[in-house]
């Protein structure tokens, strides 16, 4: 039975969304309890699916009066708990806002609605010879709204940079229904100072609802070469990474799979002949054909010189795909190994890599938790994956304790909490490890300026950010 309170909420929502959908029954809310962190569940009181941007804006006009939290959601692939209703309320699913409004090849920008899928955008851009560089692994399904909200990265962000480098403008709707443009197609042409656009990017749904973006594009690289090499130990792997980072060939991506990751791949149906106990490096260079071709041998030599005896490289799509196979397969294989996993997203100075990796191994082994490391080695963005079974009492607590110790050490060596996944409610408890009381107070004032009662995505980023009706 639906309670009178719910019934009243349903009534109000239906009035706000005459064309869209309002989901209110328990079984309609179940699917919206979690994001990519499937084991952390927070059920909303309702879900709305606006039919279009206009209806979303209309909903925002009346949202404040609902007196419940408002949580934006794209495809729900986030790994930080960002798009879940941690304090209940209404989840706004932007799945219908998937129009690519303009591709401007003269100005190298495009205008897209917030629900456009990342790979759908890529496919639409390709015939024009342009691309949008950020490439989180969830590309086949994630939306640009989520990418901008969490300032997403990806393998090629080592050279290309993360989402914030490519957002020219954000159209956002505040809780009073007012529509604001932060930047625009030409940059700086919005109703706000250009630099304040950055408040929006990475704001994790705590400020406003995004409706559309103007994104910067680049010409598609003429040529791509992919390299794969394995190393017997971390020392030689590190030597290769340092040499690659310092070299003028400036790789687009430097990815690493640790021996536990290699073992996982090799004992699965995705095995590709990597030596047992080895560290795998995956490197990519791209750009104008003549320039990139001239650099191929130098990159291969760096990889060999650091101690690899099995450097493989190719510019052929089929072979490149094979070289990427172990790296690409690893995320999914985690799911085959374990019912649940936590993936951390710490960024550390590269000099601390060996020490932090050892800490991951020691802590995980002591707790009897399996750990696999698959990460963006070029920019020191670690992704230790802790595999566990959330149905076994105590396992989640063990993993959370390991995560906390890891984060403490990450901060001590000068690193930070998140490279690309966002803080959400998964890492909010670690915020005070990085930021002092003054800094926390001032940062909290930002969402408070946009929605004083913290109605937008409460309990995210700051775990004391409650919505008080």
């Amino acid at each position, binding site marked *: 039975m639906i309670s009178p309170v719910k019934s009243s909420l349903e009534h109000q929502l239906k009035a706000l969304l005459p064309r869209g959908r309002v989901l209110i029954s328990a079984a309609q809310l179940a*699917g919206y309890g979690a994001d990519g962190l499937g084991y952390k569940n927070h059920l909303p009181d309702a879900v709305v699916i606006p039919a279009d941007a206009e209806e979303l804006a209309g909903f925002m006009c009346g949202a404040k009066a609902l007196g419940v939290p408002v949580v934006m959601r794209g495809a729900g692939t986030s790994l930080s708990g960002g798009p879940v209703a941690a304090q209940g309320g209404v989840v706004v699913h932007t799945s219908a806002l998937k129009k690519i409004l303009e591709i401007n090849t003269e100005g190298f920008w495009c205008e897209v609605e917030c629900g456009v899928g990342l790979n759908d955008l890529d496919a639409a851009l390709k015939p024009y010879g342009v691309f949008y560089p950020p490439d989180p692994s969830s590309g086949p399904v994630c939306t640009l709204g989520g990418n901008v909200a969490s300032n997403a990265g990806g393998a090629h962000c080592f050279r290309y940079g993360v989402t914030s480098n490519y957002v020219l403008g954000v159209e956002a709707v505040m809780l009073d229904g007012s529509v604001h443009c932060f930047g625009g197609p030409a940059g700086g042409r919005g109703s706000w100072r250009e630099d304040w656009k950055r408040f929006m990017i990475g704001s994790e749904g705590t400020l406003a609802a995004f409706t559309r973006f103007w994104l910067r594009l680049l010409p598609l690289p003429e040529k791509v070469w992919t390299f794969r090499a394995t190393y017997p130990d971390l020392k030689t792997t590190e030597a290769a990474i340092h040499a690659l980072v310092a070299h003028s060939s400036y790789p687009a991506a430097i990815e690493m799979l640790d021996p536990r990751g290699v073992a996982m791949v090799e004992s699965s149906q995705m095995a590709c002949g990597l030596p047992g106990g080895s560290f795998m490096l995956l490197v990519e260079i791209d750009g104008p054909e003549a320039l990139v071709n001239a650099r191929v041998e130098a990159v291969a030599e760096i990889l060999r010189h650091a101690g690899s005896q099995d450097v493989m490289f190719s510019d052929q799509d089929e072979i490149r795909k094979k070289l990427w196979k172990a790296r690409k397969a690893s995320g999914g294989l985690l799911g085959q190994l374990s019912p649940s996993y936590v993936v951390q997203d710490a960024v550390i100075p590269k000099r601390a890599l060996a020490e932090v990796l050892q800490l991951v191994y020691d802590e995980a082994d002591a707790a009897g938790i399996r750990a696999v490391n698959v990460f963006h080695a070029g920019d020191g963005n670690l992704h230790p994956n802790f595999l566990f079974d959330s149905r076994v009492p105590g396992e989640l607590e063990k993993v959370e304790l390991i995560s906390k110790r890891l984060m403490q050490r990450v901060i001590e060596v000068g690193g930070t909490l998140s490279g690309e996944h966002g803080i959400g409610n998964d890492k909010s408890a670690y915020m005070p490890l990085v930021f002092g009381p003054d800094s926390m107070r001032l940062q909290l004032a930002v969402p408070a300026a946009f929605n004083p009662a913290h109605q937008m995505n409460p309990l995210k980023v700051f775990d004391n950010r409650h919505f008080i009706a």
Partner: protein
Amino acid sequence: MTPSLHSPTSPPDYFSNCTHCGFCLAVCPTYQLTGDENNSPRGRLRLWSEEAAGRLPQDEWTDFYTAECVGCLACETACPAAVPYGEIFEHIRHEHVATHRFSPKLPLRLAAAAVAYPALFNLAMLPARLLRSAGLGVHRFLFPGRPAILKSTAAYAGELMHRHRPTGPRVAFLTGCLMEAAFREINFATVRVLIENNVQVIIPGGQGCCGAFQEHTGLDGVETLRERNRRAFGPLEVDAIVSNSSGCGYALGKTLPPDKPVRDVLAFLGELNPVRRHRAKDDATRVYVDLPCHLVHGQKAPGIPANVLDATGYRWELAPNAKDCCGSGGVYNIQKPENARAILAGKSAFLNEAEGSPVILATSNHVCMMQWHSAGATGLVTRPYEVKHLIQLLDPGEDFSIPPASPQS
């Protein structure tokens, strides 16, 4: 320690493989249609597992979202965690029907009962064969064709085997229920193509419906049907068991033991490099190939071999989004006609502008053919086009002989 992969045995265990990554959303036709997470594989798995764990009471919305699933299995291909969604879905659907949470439409229940008795089903479908044979398209699903009215595929294959005496590999052919009862001309063409390629064709007696009908509807009786086919195909000493319908082939594949793999007839022919049809130089026919879900997502085939498509002699290309569902989904277009039509509308729009004269939409599953035919019959596609099974495009016709073996072979 060597990681061991899950080998799920009971439904509650299945759910644990899903890490909630969401990769299935992008390929799910009902999520794409509705934008509702509950109407996606990840959402449905969540509903079923929450209910199984006792955290969610039985709810008519769970029944609704379960019934919405097309069963195309595109999510299995997209799933990095190898969740056996199809198996779970089949289990849940059967449970929903058994507990009256969902009831298949009456004609489907009658048909499901009838397919268990091939002779009866053949008789019941006699009007369909007569109407098609007379060139009368009276139903949106009845694509044109000239099936034999009385002669069975088994009798026909016997005659051709006797006449041509092929000496190559021996195959056992699953003739299917609807395929045999309504679209028999495709079976006849399959027999001709196989024999022309020097394949010995055996039609095992006692075979019956593969059980896909029961799987699609969630009705009882699938195990009886499977057992009958195990008895019919199991003891045979043949080089391959072949099916010309990817859905039936997939269902029979699940029935027989791993040492009796069921091959799609086109994949089997691909290995033989089939005899090529020659077309006139100025032939402007264009063939658009659509790949059935149960071929690429069910049987996990990479597609239809290019040498088989080349052997049609026509200029061909894959239909846009060829690996996406057309909305047929076994009996989905009868259970959920509105959704099926919306899915088909997206898939078939290209035909209105497609180059070629004539234009042929070719695939390798009769229920997909029915669905594609309905695009014209219901006005989604307004220009003329034909729907063909690919085997029909390799058909030598009645008057053929087995070409002498080339020196290389």
